[in-house]
């Protein structure tokens, strides 16, 4: 793993040192020429992206990659998944090893500005950092964690939030920083640490990976804002907009009640918003080099946002996470898409 990070980083260094600067449309052109999207995902996080028994990569992040392939090629399977640890992910994107990073990555200002990456303002999952503890410790609140040993994953916002939180509350802690979530989970199970901290959604995902999930509880405190979403390299406006509007199309579809099942009937709908979304009356894809039916293909093959959510992390999944912040704005949540017009 280590070697892989190093290689990726050295690779990034060399590409950056030897290659000419990015051209507009560069990424999109390369994707079309290649015939598939190279998508960076996590290397094993149930609900977000993980490989199931049949070898299929599943999860809300993986499905977002499929939605992009559906939009560009009309075929959701034209994706090559690259599993990345938290530490490897940004170098992989910067160096051009992947076209898009869809790996529960928090949108922060420094990542969005000085690192050769941009977030297309598509928040696939609104999250916040939480704590997972062994019930045996009898801890009811994060405020009781003074002196605790904490397992975290290297190269995450989690590391920074944790330090802030303990400092703000005048508490001490010992961090154990692993490269992979599997190791953090093992660390907690073995008792190397008292607490595991991560984005809350990921705590539920970590918990179902454990031998004895009922032994662990998620504490009530949420200590940060973690808007998770895809990231791309700057400089290619077509690709940037494709990523952004694919997410919005999925949101708008949910808002309008368009689902994978009824999308064909919906083409006959008289609702002008639905007709615009599905490219019946006008062609909104053209401006960014997408086929006229891009949004139709996304919904037909992957489903709307709500469908993807429920299937991967919600009621239809072992995680059973409530919509909460991720409900549509019309239902009291934060998911809100600008209109297609």
């Amino acid at each position: 793993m280590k070697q892989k990070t190093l290689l990726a980083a050295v690779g990034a260094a060399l590409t950056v040192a030897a290659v000419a600067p990015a051209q507009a449309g560069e990424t999109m052109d390369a994707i079309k020429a290649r015939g598939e999207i190279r998508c960076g995902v996590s290397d094993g996080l149930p609900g977000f992206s993980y490989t199931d028994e049949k070898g299929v990569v599943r999860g809300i992040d993986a499905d977002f990659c499929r939605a992009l392939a559906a939009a560009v090629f009309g075929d959701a399977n034209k994706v090559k998944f690259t599993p990345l640890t938290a530490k490897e992910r940004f170098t992989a994107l910067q160096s051009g090893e992947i076209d898009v990073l869809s790996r529960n990555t928090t949108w922060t200002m420094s990542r969005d500005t000085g690192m050769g990456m941009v977030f297309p303002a598509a928040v696939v999952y609104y999250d916040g950092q939480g704590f997972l503890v062994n019930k045996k410790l009898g801890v009811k609140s994060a405020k009781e964690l003074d002196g605790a040993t904490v397992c975290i994953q290297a190269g995450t916002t989690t590391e920074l939030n944790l330090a802030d939180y303990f400092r703000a509350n005048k508490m001490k802690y010992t961090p154990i920083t692993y490269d992979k979530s599997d190791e953090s989970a093992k660390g907690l199970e073995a008792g190397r640490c008292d607490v595991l901290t991560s984005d809350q959604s990921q705590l539920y995902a970590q918990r179902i990976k454990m031998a004895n999930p009922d032994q662990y509880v998620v504490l009530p405190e949420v200590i940060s804002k973690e808007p998770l979403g895809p990231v791309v390299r700057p400089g290619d406006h077509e690709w940037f907009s494709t990523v952004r509007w694919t997410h919005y199309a999925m949101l708008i579809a949910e808002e309008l009640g368009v689902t994978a099942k009824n999308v064909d009937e919906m083409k006959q709908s008289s609702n002008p918003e639905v007709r615009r979304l599905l490219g019946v009356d006008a062609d909104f894809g053209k401006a960014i080099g997408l086929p006229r039916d891009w949004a139709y293909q996304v919904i037909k093959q992957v489903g709307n946002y709500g469908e993807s959510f429920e299937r991967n992390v919600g009621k239809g999944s072992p995680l059973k996470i409530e919509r909460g912040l991720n409900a549509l704005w019309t239902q009291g949540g934060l998911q809100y898409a600008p209109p297609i017009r």
Partner: protein
Amino acid sequence: MKPSRSAFLSWIYDPKIRGIIAQVVTLVVLGLLVGWLAHNAVTNLAARGIASGFDFLNDPAGFGILQTLIPYTESDTYARVFVIGLLNTLLVSALGIVAATILGFIMGVARLSKNALVSALATVYIETFRNIPPLLQIFFWYFAVLQAMPSPRQSLGWFDAVFLNIRGLYLPRPIPTEAVTAFVVAVVLAFALWWVIARWAKRRQDETGQPFPVFWTGLGLVVLLPYLASLVFGSPFTWELPQLRGFNFVGGWVMIPELVALWVALSIYTSAFIAEIVRAGILAVPHGQTEAAMALGLTPQQRLRLVILPQAMRVIIPPLTSQYLNLTKNSSLAAAIGYPDLVGLFAGTVLNQTGQAIETIAMAMAVYLTISIMISLFMNWYNKRMALVER
């Protein structure tokens, strides 16, 4: 013959001068290449909106670190994180080199033992550990051994001072008192005396053939003098004992399991290679030497220590150096189990938090290069010294 012209141009045919010219040209070309790459990198980084330069080293790091040999808080800079990673790498490498050398020499000699059981055991040890990838061994020592340790509340304890649990080995921490100066002086004095006695004993033995138990005398001095000093001037240290408070032990000095696992794994893995080197070195000493030593009436231990090993060392040292280098480089596998070494901490976490891949990787590479060159230089020097002993 046109003497004037050939004299003018003759330097072209001088191999020495040609050599120098070739070197200078190579150097200039290399310099230009590096300059071009650096310039390109800076322009391209700017074009891609990636910050460049080393200014980030002054920014606060903002994350916690498991093991820091110098004081550290989250508001300290990335530059300090670099030093912490470096020290952690040096610590585990130094510990590993010492342990691997001792284990390796024991196993190498054992493999040549006339006792079939001892030699078979050594062979099994060497073949097993040499052929399992170091990363697996690290995982084994970490997860297998870790799992077997008790939780902090069920710690194994000795004399209320030493505790062992899954969080590490807790030892009392010495806190110097005023008497510490006398103590240090006594220690230094003891070693100085040891050295003087060793020289005297050697000369006497050269002259009269009378041996003198230098080692035991020296050891006695090193124990006795500081003990006397603390009797006279009072105890040089008070001891801070580890105590269970809340989740964990606080106070004392803790050796974390990540360090232990890495240390044990690297030492055992490398010792298997060193053992083979030692064996080869000993076999390289002609059998006649052993026979001659026997004829002089030396005991088996003396034969090994005074005749065989000193000659074998000349064969052993060069490949031993590369094993030390390997161990140091393998220590970068630390990140797999969360030991905060230079690569995991700096070329990993810091790279990721700042996004400045080129700078962080370049700094890490420079460190490994420097460590490697320093170990090489030291071993070359040592090798020369050993080689001179030859008559």
